[in-house]
């Protein structure tokens, strides 16, 4: 598996709070739009097709 499932996020509490705070006052539809954009932006950053495939399957399971 090429997907990194070890700890990799710097300052995990800060990251998580930022994500939740950002969506706190948003409507449900806006949240979905933001999440979609976020997935696309991060997917492009990763780029590697195998890694993306594994991540999608993992998320669905």
């Amino acid at each position, binding site marked *: 598996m090429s997907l990194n499932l070890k700890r990799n996020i710097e300052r995990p509490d800060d990251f998580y709070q930022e994500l939740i705070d950002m969506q706190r006052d948003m409507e449900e539809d806006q949240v*979905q*739009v933001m999440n*979609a*954009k976020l*997935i*696309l*932006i991060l997917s*492009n950053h990763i780029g590697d097709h195998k890694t993306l495939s594994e991540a999608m399957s993992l998320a669905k399971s």
Partner: protein
Amino acid sequence: MLNTYTWPEYPYVQSDDQKNGTVKRKPVIVIGAGLIGLSAALDCARLGIPVIILDDNNTVSIGSRAVCYAKRPLEIWDRLGIADKMVEKGISWNVGKVFFKEDLAYEFDLLPEKGHKMPAMINLQQYYCEEFLVDEVMKHSDLIDLRWKHKLISLTQHDDHTSLQVETPDGIFTMECDWMIACDGANSMVRDMVKADFTGQFFQDRFLIADVVMKADFPTERWFWFDPTFHKNQSALLHKQSDDVWRLDFQMGWDADPKEATKPENVIPLIKAMLGNDTEFELEWVSIYQFACRRIDNFRYGRILFAGDAAHQVSPFGARGANTGIQDIDNLTWKLKMVMDGDAPIEFMDSYDEERAFAADDNLLNSTRSTDFITPKSKSSRIFRDAVLELSKKYEFARPLVNSGRLSMPTPYVNSSLNTADEDGFEAGVAPGTNCADAPIIADGAEGWLLNKLSDDFTVLVFGDAPDKSEIKLGNIRAQVITVGAQIEDKAGLLTQRYDAEDGAVYLIRPDHHVAARWRKFDEGKIIAALARATGQK
């Protein structure tokens, strides 16, 4: 009624067969005188096969229908002697613009690679293409008998032939043929008559096509709108054709009433909203359609071969209908000729199904993907689609995800049983199963093009030391040897580059200009083995 085009009416002529009531078996009968059937007949004639075309009508395509023609079909038509006419009459374009809501999201340039005889893409109304094809067919009346107002009403398949009941204004009569090529379109009668399966995906959506004449100075570009303000929650397309005719395409949704939607009083406001109130135009032709992505379960039913829409139907996004149909013919005819001449076993025709079903599946995949992007099927896919479009305005990375149709490209037959796998190292070049890239050459002191120089039989294209043979033979099958530096010169270095031939290369090229095998060095034994493989000899 069109302002820019007058349909020719071709005369019905009673055939001697019907007049005399005798049944004389024909080598090949083509059903349908559309783009594909006419091309099939011309390609048969090019190889010396006498052919009869039956068509139940007596004119060319009503409405512009297929509009974009890609390089590969143009190359095939060039062999049939009509591509220059089409390119001259057609509109060349390279720039496309994608709009999302009220904004331009981004634009692209196809940037066609230089050094090919044919352009990447032209736009031309289908009726012009068909008319040019009919004109060319008339020049070959020694081999092609084009019979209008001949409707196939039933057929019976036998081991070595097919017998047909055909209806004309003079009544019903019987014909027989060794081989039939069914090019009778998406609603193929022949397909029903052999009880073939034709399955796939239907899309619950309707599209309105309108051809308008206008002199407005819109640029010669392809404009595609997602969710435009003038047509909320739908898509729209604007594309130029010949004679100042523009193709407009509006997504209408599944609930649209086809009868109401095509009424001028409903179409004209839609067009005005798109073009602006001040733009003058005349409506030429309106049609509404829904589409399916599906293919026949087998391209060969005994001695009946299916081609074009009769064999596969795709969504219009990407111009994959006519373009792939012409390539069916390119694949079919040389194989049929070999079988008819007894140079290949009848089972060789199964490779037509193998290779073209593979290509059809590739087209269906591309066409389905475009459709899913243009008309998202769920709330979540709509959100992703809109997110891609929104991001594409600012960020280059999102643009490759935007799918308003992937323009037709030939599908390489990468897994074909006719290929001989590479054994020598090739970094690039033209891999087995792929159509040959064109390149500028000099032959007999004149500038020309590689594809025009390749043989109608097989070709052995040699880069490096010229062998002491001018042809290789396997039984009656011939491969003409062409050496770069002897019979032809590489005019601009592109030939060597495109064939990865700096260190020498030998390509075995099929009669349909697809690579069968390649090596670094000339080895007659290997060429003959590959020739046998490429022609189904066992």
